[in-house]
C-alpha cells in the first residue's frame, strides 16, 4: 500500500516562539525549526505499515525553502520520496487554504492512506486532517493511538475527550495520529546518506492548479485584526516550608476567595 504522510516544520517548543508584530504571523526566524514531533510518529506509522505490507511512503510538506530540511529528515528515517509544496504566494495561508493546497498535492499522488499528526505544536487548530478528508471526499479516522490495516479496511482506537472509541473505515482514508501511537526511529548514518539521493519534487501554485486569487495571507478566510504579547507572568510570594506550608497555601487561597 502507498501512503502519504503530512509533515510540518515548526518552531521548537523548547525555544522561545514569537509572532511578527507587523502582521502577527509566525516569526520563523525567532526559533529553531524542527520536524514537529507528532509528524515523526506519523512517518513511523507509515514506515511500519509499508515494511509489513509493501508500498511506498511519500512525505508531503508545505512551507518555505528551509522546510526541505524536514523532508530530508523524514527521508532519512526511511520515507521513499518527498513532495514540497513551495510558493511565495502561499505564505500566510490559514488552515482552509493550507488544506486546499495539500489536497491538490495529494491528488497528484495515488495513495491508499493519508497520515497526519493530530495537531501541530504551532498552529494547533487540529483541523487540517479533517479539512483534507472533506476536500478529498474520504472518511477521517482521527486522533488514533492504534492503527491496523486488513485488506482495504482500517481499524483504530480513537482517543477523544471522554475516553476512546473503536472505529473502522474503508481505504482510502485520512488518519491522524496522537503521540501514544509509537516511538519514532532515529535516522541512522546509512539513512541520512541515502536520503540525499531520494527524489524531492517541488509543486507551486500553478502545478497544483490553485487560483492565485485565493491563496496567501491577503486572501485568507480568517484574518488577524490585532495582537498583543502577554505581559510576562511574575513570580508571587515564595516561602520555604517550615511545616506550615500547606496551611499558608490555604490562607492564600482563602484570602483570594478561591476556597
Amino acid at each position: 500500500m502507498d501512503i502519504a504522510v503530512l509533515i510540518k516544520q515548526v518552531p521548537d517548543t523548547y525555544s522561545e516562539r514569537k509572532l511578527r508584530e507587523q502582521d502577527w504571523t509566525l516569526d520563523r526566524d525567532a526559533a529553531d525549526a524542527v520536524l514537529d514531533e507528532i509528524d515523526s510518529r506519523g512517518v513511523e506509522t507509515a514506515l511500519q505499515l509499508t515494511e509489513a505490507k509493501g508500498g511506498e511512503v511519500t512525505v508531503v510538506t508545505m512551507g518555505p525553502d528551509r522546510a526541505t530540511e524536514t523532508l530530508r529528515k523524514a527521508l532519512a528515517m526511511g520515507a521513499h520520496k518527498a513532495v514540497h509544496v513551495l510558493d511565495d504566494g502561499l505564505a500566510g495561508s490559514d488552515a482552509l487554504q493550507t488544506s486546499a493546497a495539500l489536497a491538490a498535492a495529494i491528488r497528484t499522488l495515488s495513495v491508499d492512506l493519508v497520515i497526519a499528526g493530530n495537531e501541530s505544536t504551532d498552529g494547533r487548530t487540529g483541523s487540517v486532517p479533517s479539512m483534507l478528508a472533506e476536500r478529498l471526499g474520504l472518511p477521517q479516522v482521527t486522533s488514533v493511538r492504534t492503527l491496523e490495516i486488513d485488506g482495504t479496511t482500517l481499524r483504530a482506537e480513537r482517543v477523544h475527550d471522554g475516553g476512546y472509541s473503536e472505529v473502522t473505515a474503508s481505504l482510502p482514508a485520512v488518519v491522524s495520529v496522537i503521540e501514544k501511537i509509537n516511538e519514532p526511529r532515529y535516522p541512522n548514518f546509512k539513512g541520512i546518506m541515502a536520503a540525499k539521493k531520494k527524489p524531492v519534487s517541488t509543486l507551486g501554485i500553478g502545478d497544483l492548479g490553485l487560483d492565485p486569487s485565493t491563496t496567501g495571507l491577503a486572501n485568507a478566510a480568517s484574518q488577524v485584526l490585532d495582537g498583543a504579547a502577554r505581559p510576562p507572568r511574575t513570580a508571587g510570594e515564595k516561602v520555604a516550608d517550615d511545616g506550615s506550608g500547606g496551611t499558608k497555601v490555604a490562607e492564600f487561597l482563602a484570602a483570594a476567595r478561591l476556597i
Partner: protein
Amino acid sequence: MAEVLVLVDHHDGVVRKVTAELLTAAARLGTPAAVVVGKPGTVESLAAELGALGAAIVYAAESDDAAGFLITPQVAGLAAAAAAATPAAILVPATVDGREISGRLAVRLNSGLLADAVDVESIDGEVVATQSVFGGEYTVRYRVTTGVPIISIRPNAVEAAPTAASPQVVPVQITIDPAISATVIADHPEPIGDRPELGAASVVVSGGRGVGSADNFHVVEELADSLGGAVGASRAAVDSGYYPPQFQVGQTGTTVSPQVYIALGISGAIQHRAGMQTSKTIIAVNKDSEAPIFEIADFGVVGDLFTVAPLLTGAVKARKS
C-alpha cells in the same frame, strides 16, 4: 437579530457544561440556537434543558445513523441548520470532536475557521474571536472574511450566564454519506468518577516527577477531591507511568486555564507551562527552590509535597465543614 448556531455536546442524555458556555457566548453575538445531532427522540429529552441554558431555537437533526458514524453526522447537522438559519456564526466546543467537526464544516461551507478561541465579541456587527497563541504568550484577535464564521471555543473560557428561553423546536433533515464516514464500533468512556473533566475544571491539581510513583498519586487525587477539582499530570509523570496519558497537561497534552492550578512536584518545563500558564492563579510546591515553575507561581512553597499537600487537603476540608 441573526441566529448563532451552537453544536450541543451531549452524551447519554447528559448535556455537557461547555454547551452552556457556548450558548452564553452565542447570546453576545445574536439569537442563540442550539443544534442537536442524535438519534430520534434526543431533542425531546434535551429541549427543556437547552431552553434553560438560553437556547431560543433548537434545531433537531435526528437520524438513526447519528450515533454510528464519526464526525460527519454533526457536520451534516450543522450544515443543514446553517442552510435553514443563515446564521451570524457557528460555535462548537474546542474538543477533539469539535475541532474536527469545525474543520470539515469549514470546507463544506467554504467558510473561515477560528480555532480554539478563548473569547468572542461583536464589533460593529462583525464577529471577532480572541485566541491564545503559544500557550498564552500572545493573544490575537481574528475575524472571518469568507462565509459564516465557524468558531471553536475552548471549554471553561466563557462563564455560563444563561437567560432562560422557551425554545422553538425546528426539525432539519440530515443525510450521512457512509462513503466519507468512519464507523464507530464501540465507545469506551473513561471512568472519571465524580471528578470534573480536565479541560473544563475550575480547579486542577497536577502531579509531576516529584510524586515519585503511581501509588503516591493518591496525594494529588485527595487534594483535587477536597477542592472539587480535576487531576492532571506532567509529561514526566505520564512518561514514567505514574498516571494515564489522557490526564497530561502541557503542549502535547490538554491545555487548561482553570481558576486555580496547583502544581505538585512539577519543575515547570516550558512544555508544561505552555499548557497551564493562562490559569488565573497558580500554586507551586517543589523541593527545588530554583524550579522554573516558581517564576510563574502566584504562591510557591519550597518543600516536600508529601508534607504540604496533605496539610492543605486537611485545611480545605476544615474550611468546608
